[in-house]
Structure formats: C-alpha cells, structure tokens
C-alpha cells in the first residue's frame, strides 16, 4: 500500500496539489473502489451461481438479458429497486428497516482486510485476521434483527436457527485460524501469504501441513454462510424463506446480496489462508513490472472462483442436514478435530521449523 501511496502523492506533486489533499483522498478512493468492485463482484457471483446451478441441473440458466444473460442480475436488481417496500403492520418498523442497512457494513469492512496483491490491501493492520473473524460474525446480528422485527414466526425460526448455527461453528473456525497463525507466526494476512511463498510453488502452501484444518474451515464456512447442506435458517421447504420472508423490494435485495458478499469474502479468506493468496502456484511470477500486481490479483481470483465453484457444486448435490445433527456435527466432531489439528500443526511447526 505504501508503494501505491507514494505513486499517488508523486502524481499529485507533479500537478502542484498539496499533500494534505492526497492524504485525505487516498482513503476515500479505495473505499469507493471497494464498494463498486464489491457490487460488481456480487452481481457477477449471483449470475455465476445461477449459471452453474443451471448447468448442474440440465438447464440453460439465465440467457435472455444481455449477451449469454450477463445482465440478468443487473436487471433483477433494477426490478427489485422499482418494487414497493412492504413493511408488515405489526413489525417493529425501525429495526425492520435498519437490519438490511447495517448488514452491508461488515461485508465491506471484511473485504477491505483481504490482501488482493502485495501492495493492495485497504486496511493493513498487524492483527488483520483477528479483526476479520470478529467482523465476519456481525451479519448475524442484523439477521437476528430482521428475524425478530418481522413479527413472523418463520422469520423468527430462521433467525433462531442462524444464531445457534453461528455459535456452534465459530469455535472450530477460531481454532483453525489459530493453527494458521502458528504456522505463519503472524496474524497479518499479508504476512500469512508471504509465509507460504517458497521455490516449490504450491507445495509450500498451508493446505499441506494443515489439511485437516482446511476441511474443517471449509465445512464451517458453509455453515456460517448458510449454504447447502447447512441452509437451515432459510430452508425453503420448511421456513418458507427464513429470516427474509417478510422482506421485499430493495431491502430483500440487500439481504440477499450481503449473503453473496460474505460468500465472496469467505472464499477469499480460504484462498489466502490455505492456498497462498495472491501467490503463483509455480514459485515465480510469469510477468514483471507493474503487471505483477495484475497477475497476483488474477491468481487470487482464480483460486476464489474454484472454491466458489466447489460450494455451488455441493449445493447442487446434497440435501439439507437435519437441525439436531447440525449442532452435533459441530460440537462433537469439528471442535475436537480442530483442536487435534492445532496440536498437529504445532508438532509440524516444531519438527519442520516451517
């Protein structure tokens, strides 16, 4: 980030603009970029999922709006913008309207913590990872708000299930992340990425010493994102639509898109923690100069896409878990396994001195 900052200040100095202006705008520009990029990425993600699901189930997927249906989600978003926002009569109106607004804040903060390339992290703190896991659990609060304020039994059930699920699956994630911290000796995501770089390319990535952790992390991510087979909070056939049953129009769109925002963020996190983030799988980069940054971003996005593809594939294949088993899986299998994983990683670190 410093490199970009100096480039920017130099560029401003050339045009005789005071540095104080640069200091202020330098933090505005990334926020704008991240917001726009996030929106585009989420829209693309929704389309991607629909297309993939279509292909998995022998359909064509959206193919009418734009070339190959590329503008479908944009059209859907426009439609939702134009629709009436209905607030149920007995709902808590303030909280009901507040929930979709605040659900987007953590999604944006979380994406700012991801190192997209060696010089492209919007918020680079020493304890990036810790902030990530704290902020990433925030959406559940707005889900609780949404479920409670809707004054609908189905919404309430959805919210209740969601809270139970997040509580159960947060702990294994914390232990897995701890083992990554042990391996990298750092809580900074850029440092973690750099700790995975080696001449051997992808053999140095953390998914090899921490394979058990990867599996735990992946399952827990599915559960935290309410993705199939853990989609109990919005189980369509039981709870109609879960916590967003009563929402309509743009508020529904915000709730819906924030889910995809978290999906993107979590897939990025897995790519960073286990698959070397922006590192190339061949050891060295294929390009030189400024192009390296583009290449790094591309590697990260390719890895993220593969993880998202896997998530969609699972959604197309598996039925939903039953609720008691869901909690049992977490407390009696994943939590012990994640602790075992931590011990294993410590031993590997001690012996190998990775």
């Amino acid at each position: 980030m410093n490199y970009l900052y100096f480039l920017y200040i130099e560029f401003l100095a050339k045009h005789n603009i005071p540095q104080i202006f640069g200091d202020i705008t330098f933090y505005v520009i990334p926020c704008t970029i991240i917001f726009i990029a996030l929106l585009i990425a989420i829209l693309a993600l929704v389309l991607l999922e629909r297309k993939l699901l279509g292909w998995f189930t022998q359909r064509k997927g959206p193919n009418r709006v734009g070339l190959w249906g590329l503008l479908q989600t944009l059209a859907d978003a426009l439609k939702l913008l134009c629709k009436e926002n209905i607030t149920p009569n007995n709902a808590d109106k303030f909280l009901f309207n507040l929930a979709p607004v605040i659900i987007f804040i953590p999604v944006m903060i979380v994406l700012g913590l991801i190192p997209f390339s060696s010089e492209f992290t919007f918020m680079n703190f020493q304890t990036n990872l810790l902030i990530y896991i704290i902020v990433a659990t925030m959406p559940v609060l707005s889900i609780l708000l949404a479920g409670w304020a809707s004054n609908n039994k189905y919404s309430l059930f959805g919210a209740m299930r969601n809270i139970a699920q997040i509580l159960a699956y947060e702990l294994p994630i914390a232990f897995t992340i701890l083992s990554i911290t042990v391996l990298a000796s750092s809580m900074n995501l850029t440092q973690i990425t750099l700790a995975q770089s080696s001449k051997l390319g992808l053999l140095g990535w953390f998914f090899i010493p921490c394979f058990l952790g990867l599996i735990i992390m992946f399952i827990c991510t599915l559960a935290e994102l309410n993705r199939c087979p853990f989609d109990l909070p919005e189980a369509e056939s039981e709870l109609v639509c879960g916590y967003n049953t009563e929402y309509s129009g743009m508020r529904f769109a915000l709730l819906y898109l924030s889910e995809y925002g978290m999906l993107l963020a979590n897939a990025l996190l897995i790519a960073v923690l286990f698959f070397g983030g922006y590192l190339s799988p061949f050891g060295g980069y294929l390009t030189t100069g400024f192009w390296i940054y583009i290449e790094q971003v591309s590697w990260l996005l390719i890895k993220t896409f593969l993880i998202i593809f896997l998530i969609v594939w699972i959604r197309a294949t598996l039925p939903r878990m039953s609720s008691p088993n869901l909690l049992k899986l977490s407390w009696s299998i994943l939590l012990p396994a994640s602790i075992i994983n931590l011990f294993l990683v410590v031993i590997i670190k001690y012996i190998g001195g990775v």
Partner: protein
Amino acid sequence: MKKLKLNLGPQHPSTHGVLRLILELEGEKILSCEPDVGYLHRGLEKMAERLSYIQYLPLVDRIDYLASFFYSELLCRTVEKALGIELDKKVCMIRVLLLELNRISSHLLWIGAYLMDLGATSPFFYTMREREMILKLFEKITGQRMMNNYFVYGGVRHDIFALDDIECIINTIEKKILDYENIITENPIFLQRTKNKGIISKETGLNGSITGVNLRASGINLDLRKNDYLYSDINYKSIILETGDSWDRYKARILEIIESCKIVKQTLDYLQKTSGLKQNLINPIGIKLPEGSFYSEIEAPRGLASVYIKSTGEKTPYRLKWRTGSYYAVNLLRKLLINEHLNDAIAIAGSLDIILPEVDK
C-alpha cells in the same frame, strides 16, 4: 417454555398443494398436529349424482392429477362390471401399459419433490426430465398430457401406437434409475434425514388405513394387483420392505418403478405381436346401470383407490363414493408428527406422498 402455534400452509412451499397443518410447537418440537383439508373440495361425489355416466367420465381424471388413468380405469371398470361387459385381452394389456407408465411418472415426480423437501434441488430436475418423456408419450397417444380421458366404457378410445417410443422410454428410465440411486440412496445426509425417521409400524399403518407403497414399506403384503383381472397374465413381484421408515418408503418407490418397467415390457411384448383391436364399446348416451350397488378397487400409486356406486336404474348414480389413499395418510400425520423436530416433520410428511386434490375430492 411457551407454546407456539404455527400454521404450516395452506400456502407453503412444502405442502404440495393446499394442505394446512396446524402445529403446536415448543421450541421446534411438535406437540400436536392437526391437518386441515378442504381447500380444494370440488364436490365430486355430489356432482356424480347429477351427471350421467359419460358426462362424469372426464371429471374423474381430476381426482388425482398425477394418476389420472387409475381413476378413469376405476370408473370404467365399475360400469363394465355392472353391465357385464368383458374386455378383450388386448384392451386389458393396453390399460395395464398405460396404468404402469402412469405409476412410473407419479413415483418419479414424488422422488423429485421429496428430495426438494429435503433441500436437494437437482434430483427434481432429473426426475422431471424422465417424467416429461412419459407425458409427451401420453400426449402422443391420448392427445393430453395429464387429463387423458382415454379409457372408455368397454375399451379404449383408439388403438395404441408408438410402441417403439415406449420401449425407448422404458430403457432410458431403467438406466436413469441407477443414476438416482447413485446420487441419492446412499448419500449420508439423506440417510441421516430418512433412516429411522417417521416409522410406521404394521399396527399403526393398518389402524390408520394407509395403503399402497406406504403400507408395503412397513412389511405388509397388501397389493391389489394380485387379484386384479387386468394383471392376470403378468408376472411381477410386489415390493415388501421391513421397517417402514421414510427411507423404506423411498426405496420401495424406486423398486416399484423398476418393477413397473418390467410389467410395461411384458405388455409391450404382447402388444407388438398382436394387431387389430376388438372392443366391446357401448352406446355412451343414456347408459343405465341396473339396480344394485357395485364396488371395485385398484392399486393406485398413492394406495388403495375404490369406488362404490349405488344405482337405482336411473341415468345417474344414486350415490357414488370415492376412496382415496392420500386422505388416510393425511390423517395419520396427526400421530406421526408428534414429538418430531419441525425439520424432520417436513421430511416425514413428504414421504407419505400426499396429493391434495385426492384428499379433498
């Protein structure tokens, strides 16, 4: 803990129509369940008292839109029995062929819809793809996809054709069934959701009068096809399973599809050899049944279906009573869902294969 009353339906994604379950919940545990039906009541029995027999025939297809052949066969059979009409063997074979194809399509839809209830979306599209082939075939033969109205008193509307298509469809389905087995049957999550869930013991099943696949999955050998004169020349084995849980009901339907494929093949063998069609059609205008009461029954996909006609020698029946399988399955939910988790309740209710037009008549 405070009790919560939840109206599951009549407009709800998992109730397959307009079933309303009034649940009393404690947390997500069900304390009591009361099914409320009648949102689709069309008064089919009352209508029968005002319509002549030929006017009533197209209507009975609507009793169960997924198994329309069975109900029109049932009415035809009762009238034929009353008037003493004997069917030619080829007509019997054609009827068996179409009934079994209809059974396959009904079970296929159930498999897809049930997996949809459990949260797996893909199998629905796969089974609909195979069902679509059968519906297209029905359209080719009878002119209609679902409300076929092909059986008439004393025969069928016209001779069957497209036998090669049927053979092709049966071969495809036999292959695709293996695909379903691969993706669904041994899936650990599916096993978790269905094994030992919603067990219907022999006594509960008999006491609740559920019939058909649901009862055979509990281990009771009640298959009306063995007494059926249509099936007299056909070799098949009825599927009897043991425990009567949701998984058994699923497996029984899969096996029944395979068995139905075999029956269709036998009828195809016969039909390909014979040509010409000898029918005993009667003048449909002014059919009058002799005085007395007539009863007949058939093994429909959703259990025993029967019709009871009391005639006084008029153009219209004096009283006509339908018995449908789903109605009793709905009433069994009252017992079956108690102390289950809401999440399992959907899986259990779905496994009984309830079709609401059949319940409401």
